[in-house]
């Protein structure tokens, strides 16, 4: 604890404000309309845990959601030790010496996994110095690695965390060429170490965006894609070849190295693609590069070729409420896309990327809830509640190949746990407590501070600037 406090003045100040924030969150506003018992219990346990050390905790009396598509259970318990889930379910014994938190029947879930985002890469989109989403003037493409661009102290990280998002798959935006670069899996914890897995994915866009990068036609996209992968393969066999190619090289060294990892399946390839014919052609790429691990992003017209996607065993991350034919590659857009893909056997994750992909990851719960509601509309396809929650927790973890370590409360997964004030898929529900890797997290954001300052907009004896 002392070590954490003395890391720097900034850190100790943050730790202090975190203690205050717990009091605010649990003692005052969040539990205003609820029973006081949980408030007292949680405040006590949080205050002890404030400097963000991993706790051994047992959350009991939970309406427990494992996140793997199974149904919620009443009276559930989650035990987290050494930063990992060791047990979750009913009839789970709480080991001696483990601190108990009584959830008082509230919903307890794994933290949400943002399936495709730019959180950490952007503070203010239109302020270019704070926006590291895209490197469109770089000479590099596939070799770009977003890890050093991430800012764990940015306010979007805190705002998304306060919405229950504990992990995110972060992809780069477009580069100057076809491949966008390497994304990461991150945690949204209140500390300086954000990267869970660097170079966790490579991103590329096909369709209209891809053809504009490749030279103006889908023909150029597919050729450039293939030629760059073949060049990378040649490079892998004979690195000296790159020097021989000289200025005619299709790739920089770093790009070639990154693409070698795509070819051998080390790095999953996330492909933005929407038109049905583009999807089919992307699936065919596995014929030539069989070890490649594809993940489709968008797949707006995917339902038209759902059986092909299912047969290829390629997971899909979609923006489920995008239902407008806003381009000719999304003519068949419908909110039933997720449900129809699921019915066909496709592994579906819900992302928030056709909207604001850096600030509003918390929209995932609203989108998932909408898919539950859609199941009640005649002729529409949606998801069950259990499927919908899995689509924002374990499914994205599986898409990026990390289902064994994040995305659910099955034993061995990271201790990312959220206690909610209500049904997490219902509008406006919010976390009342969040742990990441077993560490209790601050839920207070800059927005909360502004709200509190202006709760009464009129100035008092001193200007608002003194009110904090």
């Amino acid at each position, binding site marked *: 604890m002392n070590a954490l406090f003395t890391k720097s003045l900034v850190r100790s100040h943050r730790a202090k404000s975190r203690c205050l924030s717990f009091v605010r969150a649990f003692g005052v506003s969040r539990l205003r309309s609820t029973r006081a018992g949980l408030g007292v219990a949680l405040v006590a346990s949080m205050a002890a845990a404030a400097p963000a050390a991993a706790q051994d905790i047992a959350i009991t009396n939970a309406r427990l959601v494992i996140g793997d598509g199974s149904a919620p259970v009443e009276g559930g318990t989650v035990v987290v030790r050494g930063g990992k889930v060791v047990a979750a379910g009913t009839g789970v014994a709480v080991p001696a010496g483990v601190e108990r938190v009584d959830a008082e029947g509230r919903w307890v879930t794994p933290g949400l996994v943002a399936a495709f985002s730019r959180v950490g890469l952007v503070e203010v989109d239109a302020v270019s110095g704070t926006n590291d989403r895209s490197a469109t003037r770089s000479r590099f493409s596939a070799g770009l690695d977003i890890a050093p661009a991430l800012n764990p102290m940015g306010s979007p990280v805190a705002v998304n965390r306060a919405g229950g998002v504990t992990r995110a798959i972060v992809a780069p935006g477009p580069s100057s060429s076809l491949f966008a670069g390497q994304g990461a899996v991150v945690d949204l914890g209140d500390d300086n170490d954000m990267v869970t897995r660097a170079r966790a994915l490579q991103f590329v866009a096909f369709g209209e965006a891809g053809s504009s990068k490749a030279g103006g036609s889908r023909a150029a996209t597919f050729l450039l894609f293939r030629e760059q992968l073949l060049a990378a393969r040649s490079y892998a066999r004979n690195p000296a070849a790159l020097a021989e190619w000289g200025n005619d090289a299709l790739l920089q060294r770093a790009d070639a190295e990154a693409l070698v990892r795509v070819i051998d399946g080390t790095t999953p390839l996330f492909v933005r693609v929407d038109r049905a014919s583009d999807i089919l052609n992307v699936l065919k790429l596995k014929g030539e590069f069989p070890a490649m691990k594809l993940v489709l992003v968008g797949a707006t017209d995917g339902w038209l070729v759902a059986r092909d996607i299912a047969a290829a065993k390629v997971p899909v991350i979609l923006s489920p409420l995008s239902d407008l034919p806003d381009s000719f590659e999304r003519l068949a857009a419908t909110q039933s896309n997720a449900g129809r893909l699921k019915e066909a056997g496709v592994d579906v994750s819900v992302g928030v990327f056709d909207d604001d992909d850096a*600030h509003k990851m918390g929209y995932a719960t609203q989108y998932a809830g909408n898919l539950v509601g859609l199941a009640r*509309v005649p002729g529409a396809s949606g998801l069950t509640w259990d499927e919908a929650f899995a689509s924002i927790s374990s499914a994205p973890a599986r898409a990026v190949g990390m289902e064994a370590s994040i995305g659910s409360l099955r034993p061995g997964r990271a201790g990312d746990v959220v206690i909610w004030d209500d049904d997490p898929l219902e*509008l406006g529900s919010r976390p009342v407590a969040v742990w990441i890797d077993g560490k209790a997290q601050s839920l207070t954001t800059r927005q909360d501070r*502004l709200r509190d300052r202006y709760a009464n907009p009129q100035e008092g004896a001193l200007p608002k600037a003194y009110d904090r």
Partner: protein
Amino acid sequence: MRTRLKASLLAAVSLGFAGCAATGGEAKSAGDKPAASAEKSAKFDKNPYPSTYRPYPSQTTVVRGVTIFDGEGGRIDDGVIVMADGKVEAVGGADLAVPAGAAAIDGRGKYLTPGVIDIHSHLGDYPSPSVDAHSDGNEATSPTTPEVWSEHSVWPQDPGFSRALANGGVTSLQILPGSANLMGGRSITLKNVPARTVQGMKFPGAPYGLKMACGENPKRVYGGKGRMPSTRMGNFAVNRQTWAKAAAHKKKMDEGKADRDLAMETLVGVLSGEILVHNHCYRADEMALVIDMAKEFGYKVSTFHHAVESYKIADLLAKEGICSAMWADWWGFKMESYDGVNENVPLVERAGACAIVHSDDANQIQRLNQEAAKALKAGRRMGIDISDAQAWTWVSYNPAKALGIADRTGSLKPGKMADVVLWNGNPFSAYTRPEKVWIDGALMYDANDPKRRPVSDFELGQPGEGDVK
């Protein structure tokens, strides 16, 4: 987000090619027609593109046993509504007398509300598909273009109208020009009915609006072209100079001495109180300056749109009687949206000011009920106790008031247009969707009847035609 980016952030880029045409001011475009220039403005037709909308056939309909939010803050459990001749005939409890022979709908377990009204939409002027050929929302060739009318850009075949109806229960909406310009042009209020022409959608008798914009967009768009305004002080200088010109023109018009000038006629319409000002303005300090500018020139602002910082001056907005049209939780996409808070809408409501939830987005217009729900719950978490029925005013009565149509729609008072949504559950739940939507008493959407689902010309014969969407 895509729509908004097109309408705002990317205005300069996407419409930059049009800059080569920006040689003339607003007055010149009016003078292009020699025949019109001699015409004295006192005699001109103020409604040259009249609405041809007529309510579609309806039948007398009764919904019983339903939970009603009346749109003005009232709630009736186990309520009854009677719709006849396109109007709300009566609303009451289980004992309400109903006419014989009416179509009867069992509303048990369901909710009934006035239709959603979106005060800020670009459907039709930034339609789907969002191709350059359709990009008709910003006349970004001059910082003040009050002479343009958004109705002349609206493509009635935008599939977005049908989504707003079927998924969002939207029955009326205002289509605004974009925010590249300080004065972007006239807005138009539409009934959300499919039509061959925009005239077939125009809300009969609704006043025109003038779209204005504060802040980052105008100064970026014109500063980027190396011309005024390039600063916020430049924004105000250009606005004030233009209002001064409009005041002089008004004097000439009052004296019957003015030639036709489309730009000035719009601004004189504002100064005369016939045209309502809808001002895109994020920051609290800028709103306060606009309020003083309006007083300086003798006009009134109806509504600040995208009013992300209204919570900082909610007392001032209440005192001035100005509405705020807000998102529930959008923030951080540009500097002037950085101080967004989830409690903005309820904080404005609590201060006694007029709160509106708006979309500015072809997707979010399909979920304004959900956006209101998020704001409502954020408010309750900080102890602001607002009822569900009161929160419904944010998406019906308040926008109707701000658009000058509250005497005809926006609530379920007898005699008003029967613009009504039957929801299959509480509309503040993520699990709820519209089941039926009536516009002027005509059933325009029915979730149980695929034939009551509009399909635009653009979608006819395409993959997914007539799908649930």
